[in-house]
């Protein structure tokens, strides 16, 4: 007899005005637990490990999707190039002639530089150890500007390694899995690269804007910056090598009484359409200029080496650079 009221209570509960409310409370609580644990645990924590494991399984599927969507991704460029007007063609021909002349000059300068380098025993700016990789996907959500590449920790890649394409710097590894990695592009809002103007050597920080453009901040108004100036990585902090091209200055503004310029930087290619990249697996010691008192995120990349070993390493790096370029071409 005493069981009857309980049974009635259970029946009443089943006819709730909000079915699934208790389930909602449980799953919302579980979501908060996941959020908290993920934020507090390290890169080797259980959620990170599970996420990384599942991401490894998903990589081949994503690769198939990327391959299947290739014709659609190329469509805007095809449409754009299909209708060049006469003015554009003339402009391109002139630019081509100018570039050929510049190339000849650069060849001469390069030979001269090589001789000087041999004399002084300096390391080449771009003697870097790299690993070629292919882009297999972009960002799934609207909040990140990133690409996924088909190489991961098993290929010797690690977090914070810089990533370049044929033009220059494109980003840094922000997430690493066994056989894939996520590269945070320099256009991402969370990205920051120490940079300098090639001509005046004025230094600042390149950051991404919400609309995907780049700004060069903290360049003091006493330095000379003009539209068209090439912007290079400055190498400060040791995260990125020095001298890698980032883009060109597209506009320079100066507010009255301001200490710094407002500089917009344009990347001369579509950064989201990059297909092959090189991940810099080791920086030259010459590229590393750590700021005093600041611990670099990629300190593990640098190693104390003797000048003799350094020279040997450079030669090896140059050889590997050549082979990785070949790999990239054969890719």
């Amino acid at each position, binding site marked *: 007899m005493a069981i009857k009221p309980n049974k009635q209570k259970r029946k009443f509960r089943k006819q709730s005005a909000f079915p699934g409310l208790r389930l909602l409370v449980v799953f919302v609580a579980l979501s908060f637990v996941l959020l908290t644990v993920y934020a507090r645990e390290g890169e080797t924590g259980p959620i990170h490990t599970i996420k990384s494991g599942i991401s490894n399984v998903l990589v081949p599927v994503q690769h198939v999707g990327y391959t299947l*969507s290739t014709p659609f991704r190329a469509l805007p460029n095809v449409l754009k190039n299909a209708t060049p007007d006469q003015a554009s063609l003339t402009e391109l021909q002139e630019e081509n002639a100018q570039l050929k002349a510049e190339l000849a000059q650069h060849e001469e300068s390069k030979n001269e530089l090589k001789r000087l380098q041999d004399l002084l025993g300096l390391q080449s700016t771009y003697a870097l150890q790299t690993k070629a990789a292919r882009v297999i996907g972009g*960002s*799934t959500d609207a909040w990140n500007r990133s690409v996924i590449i088909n190489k991961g920790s098993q290929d010797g890649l690690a977090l914070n390694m810089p990533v370049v394409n044929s033009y220059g710097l494109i980003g840094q590894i922000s997430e690493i899995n066994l056989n894939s990695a996520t590269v945070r592009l320099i256009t991402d809002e969370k990205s920051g690269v120490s940079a300098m103007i090639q001509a005046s050597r004025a230094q600042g920080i390149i950051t991404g804007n919400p*609309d995907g453009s780049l700004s060069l901040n903290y360049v003091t108004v006493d330095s000379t910056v003009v539209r068209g100036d090439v912007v290079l990585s400055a190498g400060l902090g040791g995260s990125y090598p020095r001298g890698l091209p980032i883009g060109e200055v597209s506009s320079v503004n100066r507010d009255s009484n301001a200490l710094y310029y407002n500089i917009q930087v344009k990347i001369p290619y579509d950064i989201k359409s990059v297909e092959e990249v090189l991940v810099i697996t080791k920086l030259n010691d010459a590229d590393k200029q750590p700021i005093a008192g600041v611990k670099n995120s990629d300190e593990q990349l640098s190693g104390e080496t003797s000048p003799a070993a350094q020279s040997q390493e450079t030669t090896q790096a140059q050889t590997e650079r050549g082979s990785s370029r070949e790999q990239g071409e054969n890719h």
Partner: protein
Amino acid sequence: MLNLGTDPHEKTTLIVVSLILLLIQIMFGPQAGIFDAHPNFMLLLACMWGFSRGSESGVIAGFLSGLAYDIMVNTPFGLMTLVLTIAGFLSGLLQRNLISTDPKLAVLLTLGLSILAEFVVGIFIFVLGLEGNIIYALFGRMIASSIYTSLCAIPLVFILNKFMRDSQSSQLGTRYK
């Protein structure tokens, strides 16, 4: 547990469509972005279960699809799980069998839930300091992504509507035999 219903035809439709949506999200989610607008096929999955099977199924589907989404993105893990769980619950509260009775309303409600979901994610990301410009986030990302997701919902809802109506009419036919 997910309420699969009694009709085997409808049950199969819901499971197959869920798997297709998951596959589309994995394969084409990263490639389907137009400027900063990205469709959220996992939200469609949660709404589909909520609209057709009620809030309990909506909550479970929302939680599972949110987990799947969180694995694929770089935003804080659990954020989309939380948002889609709530979206699945709300979609189930509105009206059961909405897809078969009023597909246009289902698309409109998907737009509303998508805006709500993107807004919550956007605010959270802004508060965490991962997004600097709230105005751009609101109009360049949230609204654009919500509209994109709703546009993707149109073919899905109408295909499901056709399947479910066919299934219901065949079931009625067998009952009156």
